[in-house]
């Protein structure tokens, strides 16, 4: 139904603060784009400029190829779901959903039919006469969705729509949003700071940092090939471990003095960062043979966090200030104080230059899609 194109979109607030430093993004028809990033990185700002609630300082925004920079929110044919729902407190659920249609001059019969159909879709039929304050959080959330859906807009915008719900409801609504979006096939932009929400909902994920797009791609692509150290640290939980390394000829020297062989082409003596996810550090049992290639790290467990299926171990590695986080099997017998032998696989590690960008050159074999 609609494509969305952002070209060098910049936003400077009245106080001179630049919240968006030129964002480029193309959203395909029917795609669900999720924007994630730390607090204050400009996610809401981006969404609000798309909605037309904030003016665009420079750059261009087009919907279906039509420039909409100067259009009022109502003229852009978008619908937005707010974090606090922003339902009209004095109107019934029916009127809340009907208000936008009324303002557009849709005939009464049509309004009734469309609101009823949407209420059906969202299981709100029995609540149409209620006021928002007579609804539970989850029901309010659904009314807010209904208000967006009933308008049949070109684009849905969501600003952290689930963050006011409890964990269980959040999972349920997440699935529902996914189901509805796939069914209605409306192009959507969804802002969240919840990793799981981002990974599970997104067709493509946009990671933002300080007003810039760090990387954009499918959730798995971002997980497997983070383009920057920031993305590497942001996607995945617990976060990736980072080890400072130096280049010695063909090898990388690890903080504890160990060495890792990598393909040539790195400038000798340069200081790089090696990243490895907690789930990709393989704990070797007594007597296990050291696998070909890679390096073995010794680390002393300082703290254990059993999560059921997995156990997280926080371990001290010589020469490293931070604790190394390792994801072990739930049954793993590691206790506090025990020493882990961890195998670091070259295929499973990521290398970042001193500009924090990914260095691809060293990788001998391409990684495959499965988690370790």
């Amino acid at each position: 139904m609609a494509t969305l194109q952002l070209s060098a979109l910049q936003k400077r607030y009245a106080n001179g603060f630049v919240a968006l430093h030129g964002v480029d993004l193309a959203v395909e028809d029917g795609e669900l784009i999720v924007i994630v990033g730390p607090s204050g990185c400009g996610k809401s700002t981006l969404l609000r400029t798309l909605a037309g609630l904030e003016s665009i300082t420079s750059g261009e925004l087009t919907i279906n190829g039509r420039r909409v920079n100067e259009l009022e929110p109502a003229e852009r044919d978008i619908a937005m779901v707010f974090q606090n729902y922003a339902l009209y407190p004095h109107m019934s659920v029916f009127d809340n959903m009907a208000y936008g249609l009324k303002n557009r001059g849709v005939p009464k019969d049509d309004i009734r039919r469309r609101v009823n159909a949407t209420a059906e879709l969202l299981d709100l039929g029995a609540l149409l006469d209620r006021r928002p304050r007579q609804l539970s959080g989850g029901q309010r959330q659904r009314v807010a969705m209904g208000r967006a859906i009933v308008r049949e807009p070109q684009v849905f915008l969501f600003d952290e729509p689930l963050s006011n719900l409890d964990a269980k409801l959040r999972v349920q609504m997440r699935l529902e949003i996914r189901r509805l979006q796939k069914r209605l096939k409306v192009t959507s932009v969804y802002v969240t700071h919840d990793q799981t929400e981002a990974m599970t909902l997104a067709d493509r994920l946009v990671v933002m940092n300080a007003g810039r797009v760090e990387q954009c791609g499918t959730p798995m692509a971002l997980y497997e090939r983070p383009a920057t150290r920031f993305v590497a640290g942001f996607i995945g939980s617990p976060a990736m471990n980072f080890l400072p390394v130096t280049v010695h000829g063909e090898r990388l020297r690890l903080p504890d003095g160990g060495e890792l062989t990598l393909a040539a082409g790195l400038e000798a003596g340069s200081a790089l960062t090696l990243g490895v996810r907690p789930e990709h550090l393989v704990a070797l049992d007594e007597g296990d043979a050291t696998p070909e290639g890679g390096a073995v790290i010794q680390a002393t467990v300082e703290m254990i966090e059993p999560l059921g299926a997995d156990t997280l171990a926080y371990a001290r590695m010589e020469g490293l200030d931070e604790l190394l986080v390792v994801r072990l099997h739930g049954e793993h017998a590691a206790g506090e104080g025990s020493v882990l032998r961890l195998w670091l696989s070259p295929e499973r590690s990521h290398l970042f230059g001193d500009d924090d960008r990914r260095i691809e050159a060293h990788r001998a074999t391409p990684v495959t899609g499965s988690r370790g």
Partner: protein
Amino acid sequence: MRYQRPGLDLASHLLLAVGCGLFFLPVWLAFTASTHSMSDLYANVAPLWVGDAGLSNYARLIHDPVSGLGTDVLRLLANSMVMALGIAVGKIAISLLAAYAIVFFRFPLRRLCFWLIFITLMLPVEVRILPTYEVVADLHLLDSYPGLILPLIASATATFLLRQFYLTIPPELVEAARIDGAGPWRFLRDILLPLSKTNIAALFVIMFIYGWNQYLWPLLITTNADYLTVVVSLKRLLTTGDALVPWQDVTATAMLAMGPPVLVILLMQRYFVKGLVETEK
């Protein structure tokens, strides 16, 4: 908090009754006085019980022009009603729009406008009475309803209170309305007005009573009995020169003058108490 102690309950009810009695006593005395004939009143001390001249006193005041005023009390009440309603409605309409502009629109000198309005809180009618009189006289508004109403129609208090209320409205609500295609007037009509219903009801009561009780300004600009208000007339009834003060007329007029404000409070109270109980936000 509620304490469940019978003794305490009794004591507080007793205290309440005494308080109510103290407040009610003057009203009661005025009422009884209004039901006696003039000769009765001057022959005895203040009567504590109703007399037999009540109906005739009130009927006379309502039907015939009162001596010393040149008009009947019904006319006085109508004048007061026009003035009080004009002031209350006008004040609310103007401060509603002023607060709307100040809170929801960005325009140059917005802060300055707000503070200018705010400062007028320190300039009640009494302070600016001479220049205001001059202006009203130049506009040929002496002895007219607009002359009674217009100089009192701007209200910093109401503007300020409505502004404080508007500030509590979440900005997302405004944005949702914008996305739903509600322009400024629609937003005012469909969202802001319904949400401020209870505030408006409360303000209406306060402003109506304020308008009804105006004394100095109407006294100053009305010389024609056709525009005399009931509150001003009370004082005029008392100034009889050498003749005896017709206390039965004074008290009966006072009783009648109390009617409309009491009525407004009773009618509106239902409205805003209901609003306060089932909060809309």
